[in-house]
């Protein structure tokens, strides 16, 4: 018997400038998480950070990306004690002047026999497009996700939606 694919677990629209957005108490009853962000930053271009279960240790994350800014394609790969390991964006960063759209697929987020691999697409029309793959080197089920700009805040009107995917 087919089951509805998506269940909206949380939907946040910021009524004021906010430094962090957290999806907490995530139930373990879905297969994947899908996060959709449509956000403005509070100042200049700033990358969006995603941290899992309160884990702020950079070396627990690994990330590789490709990106394009309309001039040339580029790549990057981060591991170890590097603050870029926890980011989702490169040219698709948030800024006060225009919205960035970011989508994150976290597959098998509650599996306790797997590290957590997640795929992100980040897009901002006046800047560029990114595709990321990241791995949280931990077999714990994901119960919370924190999102924040690396050095600024999200602006009023930014929206964040968390879906459970069956």
């Amino acid at each position, binding site marked *: 018997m*087919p*089951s*509805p*694919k*998506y269940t909206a677990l949380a939907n946040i629209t910021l009524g004021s400038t906010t430094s962090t957005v957290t999806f907490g108490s995530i139930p373990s009853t879905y*297969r*994947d998480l899908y996060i959709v962000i449509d956000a403005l930053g509070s100042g200049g271009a700033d990358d969006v950070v995603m941290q899992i279960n309160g884990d702020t240790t950079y070396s627990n994350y*690994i*990330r*590789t*990306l*490709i990106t394009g800014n309309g001039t040339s*394609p*580029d*790549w*990057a*790969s981060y591991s170890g004690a590097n603050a870029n390991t926890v980011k989702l964006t490169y040219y698709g960063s948030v800024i006060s002047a225009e919205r960035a759209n970011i989508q994150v*697929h976290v*597959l*098998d987020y509650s*599996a306790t*026999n*797997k*590290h957590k*691999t*997640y*795929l992100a*697409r980040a897009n901002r029309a006046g800047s560029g497009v990114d*595709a*990321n*793959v*990241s*791995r949280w*080197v931990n*077999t714990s089920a994901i119960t919370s996700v924190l999102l924040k700009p690396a050095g600024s805040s999200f602006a009023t009107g930014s929206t964040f939606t968390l879906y459970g*995917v*069956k």
Partner: protein
Amino acid sequence: MGVYSLTKSSIKNWVKYPNMMAGSAYIDPASDWLITETILGSSAASVTFDVSALAAQGYKHLQIRMAAKTLGTDPYAQVAIRFNGDSGTNYSNHSLYGNETSVVSSNGISGTSLYFDGVAGGATSGAYGAAVVDILDFASTAKNKTARALMGRINQNRIFLNSGAWLSTSAITSIGITDGYSLSFAAGSRFSLYASKG
């Protein structure tokens, strides 16, 4: 107070409906559905989805989500996707990917499967590749079939944007997934099939 009875013959324009919809069209509360899923309890060489009944149920597009790795000792692996068991040279694909040193573009034509790189090999315990594969208009008999995929792995770190085509106007009735290097998928690998009504 009098008691009155209401009979069918006294109702003007009486119509009997077989259900509570009363002639109105059924509206799905959701447009996207999980159809089936396979989580391997032990290693397996292939996973097959039978989609032959989905078009008649109103589904138009398919999505396969995978968290998978193979038994190989290498860190890399790729899936080979075959439609309707077609093993002819009827597939083509392109990819744009980033490795740890550059951005690379690659392609394959006249292939015997859609080869989509991005799942993980077995080199690192706990590390599974992730894939979201979309197959659009899977049942159309007026089009060749097009697929796109966002895939990635972190061991031999790679992020892939893949696209591919099956050069056939036949409706897709089955989807076979194997490892492109003829290895087996490891236990714990998961393959989920979703369908969308557009």
